[in-house]
């Protein structure tokens, strides 16, 4: 059974007042409300929490954590769930655009040290296509490219980091290690 170490997030203190849900800008889109996600984690229902798509709708705006009367780090709970899911995503989740985007982003900065935006767009769209076979998505915003180019906003190459290899080593050390409770 998956156990998520969440002591430092003060999940046990939550008394389900719902203020997080009340202030969440995307709550209406979620299949489970933020307070319900915290409730699941509180009661050990980690699988159900990870199965919910709520954490991928979350925009990390920090409103929930900031206003919580019990100092529960609700945004932190979402982060923890995302991290766990990213490790072993279910097939549905593995197709979710946001996961694919975050992975593409990390791969990109791992290789270049800094973000190469053009490459990111390309790899992200390719990844979405590979998982979902959405052809229209490949061409979404394509018309934006020339307008960006016109405004000098499309850099064909990213900035150069001389010591790029250290970034790879940093990634390796972080992604392979586990903390005391076995979490990433």
């Amino acid at each position, binding site marked *: 059974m998956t156990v998520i170490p969440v002591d430092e997030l003060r999940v046990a203190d939550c008394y389900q007042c*719902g*203020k997080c*849900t*009340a*202030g969440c800008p995307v709550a209406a889109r979620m299949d*489970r*409300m933020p307070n319900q996600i915290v409730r699941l984690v509180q009661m050990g229902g980690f699988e159900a929490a990870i199965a919910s798509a709520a954490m991928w709708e979350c925009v990390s705006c920090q409103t929930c954590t900031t*206003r919580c*009367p*019990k100092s529960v780090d609700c945004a932190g709970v979402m982060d923890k769930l995302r991290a766990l899911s990213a490790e072993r995503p279910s097939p549905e989740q593995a197709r979710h655009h946001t996961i694919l985007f975050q992975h593409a982003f990390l791969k990109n900065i791992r290789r270049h040290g800094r973000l190469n935006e053009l490459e990111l767009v390309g790899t992200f769209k390719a990844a979405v296509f590979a998982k979902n076979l959405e052809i229209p998505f490949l061409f979404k915003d394509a018309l934006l490219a020339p307008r960006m180019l016109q405004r000098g906003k499309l850099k064909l190459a990213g900035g150069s980091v001389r010591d790029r290899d250290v970034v790879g080593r940093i990634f390796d050390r972080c992604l392979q290690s586990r903390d005391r409770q076995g979490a990433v």
Partner: protein
Amino acid sequence: MARIGVFTCWCGENIARTVDVEQVSAALGQLPGVHCSLDYKYMCSEPGQSLIQEKIKSENLDAVVVASCSPHMHLRTFRKTAANAGVNPYRVEMANIREHCSWVHHDRATATTKAIDLIRMSVAKVRWDEPLEPIKVPVTRRALVVGGGVAGIQAALDIADGGYEVVLVEREPSIGGKMAGLSETFPTLDCSQCILTPRMVEVGQHPRIKLYTYSEVEQVEGYLGNFTITIRKKARYVDTKSCTGCGDCWNACPIKRNPSEFDYGLGMRPAIYIPFPQAVPARPVIDKETCTRIKKGKGCGLCEKKCLTHSIHFDDQDELVSEKVGAVVVATGFKLYSIGQQQDDGATTGYGEYGYGKFKDVVTSLQFERLLSASGPTGGRVVRPSDGKEPKNVVFLSCVGSRDDAKGLPYCSKICCMYTAKHAMLYKHKVHDGQAHVFYMDIRAGGKNYEEFVRRAIEQDGARYYRGRVSRIYEENGKLVVRGADTLAGAPVTIEADLVVLAAAVVPATGVRDLARKLNVGYDQYGFLLESHPKLRPVETSAAGVFICGACQAPKDIPEAVAQASAAASKALIMFGHEELTREPEVARIDEKNCAACFTCVRTCPYHAIDKAELLTPRGVFVKRTARVNPGLCMGCGTCVAVCPSKSADLAGFTEQEIYAEVEALV
């Protein structure tokens, strides 16, 4: 040579399970001076006590050691037992072999050895115990009540009706407190002023109540039964004796627009004013901050010109008066937590997200009471402060500042669930096509008829209750957008309200900490005054002769405040039922011939119980300076004994010889 009796208790199984009581009893019988050592199942019971008395008589004992529970439990019991059999009650020691031994150890052998050691220490001490006599102090049979809200009024009336004089000091221009400003009270929906004002009038007219309004306690000296209170009568600028309360002055005042304190800023009052029509006393005061004549020293004076009895005196000064009382009852009440602004202590941050202070139509619960009240700034019509229109959708937020570790106070303010239901009901009674929405976390309705009252608000008056907190309120197009949650339905809820009422947390009244320090009464981190024991002694404090009641002790509703006030009054009446009061004689004393007069003890005594004095010959000739303990004030803490460099200070009942005896009995 002392004749000591040692009585070891089984306390049922509490002691006997871990300590071999019979072995203990036998061992102690061997000690020199111990003429009787026996054990019994329940020493504190009647047969147990009789046993002790029998043995005192038959063995001619003059000192008693009871080995049982904590002295906090039964020291008084056994002292009485011994006294009734002719042994001085201060020649009684208790060895705690329960809380200090059987309840904290598991191993029988070591626990038994320890028990024997503990009792041996007590036997050594009791040998040195002097036959002390309780200290008698006279008692002034008058009471001071601080605070004229419903609790203070009740306490004052009870004591006065009991036959004793009461000095009632109230900070505001009139008595009545928060209850005078309410519209109706739960669960009966009695008109608040209708049930309170008869009491207020009774206080005002009572032959034994001396009422000081617009006054504060300046200084407190003395001790149980013998307090000297200095009261500051703030300058009213109106002679209350000659004034008839006709109102010509406040009608004439040109400065009409000061925010009214009684209306919590929703209404206006002139510079010379009476806080509300039923005020007791019905005499105005002048607010020196806004009165032109008083601020500038010249000009205006219209009120003085209008006054037919020449009762207005602009040269009034604060006056200090002295009153002697025997008991003090503190009933200073509460105020609401400041939302959205800097707090008194700077430690809490308020609620910027609710827009209080920014949006006119976000009000507090007490402000809403004034809107509901027939004698309020809108004559009892519920209208929006911004445009005077009737609100068709009113949102009530519970727990604003309460039950909030992060941004407010962690405790529950107790009364808000009930008054919010009341507000929802009264709003509906006044605005028939209005809709009340209540955001709550839990409903706390434990009192008599309380649950039924809340259900009535929901079932009969159609109030909509959403279980969830509100995250944010902002104003858009004249409406207040309330972003809340319904956790039971599992969805966010947005309501466009015309008016929002915040149930702000209950906190103690301003200045209570200063008053507490003057009275030597403790207070907690929120400023609530500390009772002696939360269960069994809810109205007494650590300061003998000072009692507390009402919301100054903790948030509470009117029935509880009134009950607690009567309880506090009864404690005062118990005191007054005696010709003189007794204090425990375990107080410090100073060997005045030996004292070096360094006065370190004077400086360190936490109760200010030691004075600088002079040792005189019988004819009054000065011999030397000395420190002198006031046995009335001394609480027997022993600090002076610890700091005295010349070993002149000692503590009766716990002398240095006695302590050494205990220690030496161990080694």
